[in-house]
């Protein structure tokens, strides 16, 4: 798809995963979240007034892009070197750290992912397709300690009964802690150290490598948009802090893809 295609069609096809607050579907069927809201604003600036949203399981975002099911994915996927081999990312749109959801009172006294690795009897849940599993493995958590759940919403029940913790991004965890009873977010939480650096995620929009023209136009508009107050308003409304917004602007996609 080229920008011209999109312009002449009058709309663009986007996709997001069902994950509050990065991207999700509201009861009325419309998409919301950091990714979708920013994408809509950026496309508007590019003269495309309509975005058609597909909501799809997180794990199928990249296969869907490859299968030309949609033009871009707005789910704040972490920009990682492996993903960069599959798709082309925009400059980072957000930055977020990791988090842990535990039972109220944090009975196992967990403060970071590495604590889980220390006690092999502990179980930790992650959502299928998320990169938290890589961080867990990197700090020494074993396969048999990990429970794969299909959706964030399953985390509440899982943490109550079948797992000691749920590992996700800090925002997801805080949204779940807000909505659920008898659970809490681990605070203070130490981000896991992988390859000698604390983990930090930089979420961006993913495009097909073939659609360079559309990607470049979007990327340019996004960089412009990041400078506006409207942009900050969107991000803060979903709970992102000023520091996180700054941290996102400080990184560039080329470095992230190179693993720096």
């Amino acid at each position, binding site marked *: 798809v080229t920008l011209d295609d999109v312009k002449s069609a009058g709309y663009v096809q986007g996709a997001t995963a*069902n994950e*509050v607050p990065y991207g999700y579907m509201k009861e009325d069927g419309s998409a919301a979240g950091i990714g979708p809201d920013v994408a809509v604003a950026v496309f508007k600036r590019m003269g495309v007034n309509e975005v058609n949203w597909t909501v799809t399981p997180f794990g199928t975002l990249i296969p869907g892009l*490859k*299968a030309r*099911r949609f033009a871009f994915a707005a789910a704040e996927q972490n920009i990682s070197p492996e993903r960069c081999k599959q798709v082309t990312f925009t400059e980072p749109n957000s930055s977020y750290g990791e988090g842990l959801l535990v039972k109220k009172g944090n009975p196992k006294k967990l403060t970071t992912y590495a604590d889980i690795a220390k006690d092999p009897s502990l179980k930790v849940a992650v959502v299928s397709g998320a990169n938290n599993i890589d961080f867990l493995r990197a700090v020494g958590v074993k396969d048999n300690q990990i429970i794969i759940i299909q959706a964030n919403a399953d985390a509440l029940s899982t943490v109550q009964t079948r797992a000691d913790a749920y590992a996700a991004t800090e925002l997801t965890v805080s949204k779940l802690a807000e909505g659920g009873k008898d659970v809490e977010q681990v605070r203070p939480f130490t981000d896991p150290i992988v390859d000698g650096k604390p983990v930090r995620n930089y979420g961006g929009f993913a495009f097909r490598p073939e659609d360079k023209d559309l990607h470049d136009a979007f990327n340019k508009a996004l960089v412009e948009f990041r400078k506006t107050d409207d942009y900050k308003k969107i991000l803060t409304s979903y709970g992102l802090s000023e520091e996180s917004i700054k941290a996102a602007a400080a990184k560039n996609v080329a470095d992230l893809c190179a693993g720096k």
Partner: protein
Amino acid sequence: MTWMQYLAPLLKGAQITVIISLASIVLGTILAFAAGIARTSSNPIVSGIAFVYIVLFRGTPLLVQLFWFYYALPLIGISFNPITTGIMTLSLLTGAFGAEVVRGALLAVPVSQYEAARALNFSKTYTLWHIFMPQAVVEMMPAFGNLAVQNLKDTALVSLISIADLTFQAQSLRNITLDSATVYTLTLVGYFIIALGLMLIVRLIEMKLRRGAAFSRSAHS
């Protein structure tokens, strides 16, 4: 949010579920007849093709089939929208199962009926469509009723290819409200009601086919 407010999105999902289910049941039935009749053909190529089709679709999980149709075929340039893909896949699956039903029902028509038709010099095609089919169709109905419900339940898997069916809406709702118990209870009830509706339709068709005393069961014993 109360359960009343969950109804709107769930109903929207239910609508999609019903559409996909009905469409694929109808198309699947057509396929089932084509493949089922082909299986009874004396031409080895025709029955062979039908056999391969049936084995392929009965033998692999629906999830794999959906993935292939939705995410793999576009890589070689064949692409359909999600709803079409969902309907197509489910039709092919239902058709494969239905083909065996059709074949079984055709084989269950007593040989004596075939002999009577032959003695009256009916052609093979005529015997198939005017003697065998009307009798076999009645016997197929209960099995097709089961297939219809099976098909309905299988539509729950199309959320994989981003179709906003009932299951998908339930998942989304739960994502926002974190109220699993209510959402899932409503969802189960929703499927149950749709299934009852499907069964009702099947029964009505069956009653229509059994009209009069023509098939008061003892007819060919």
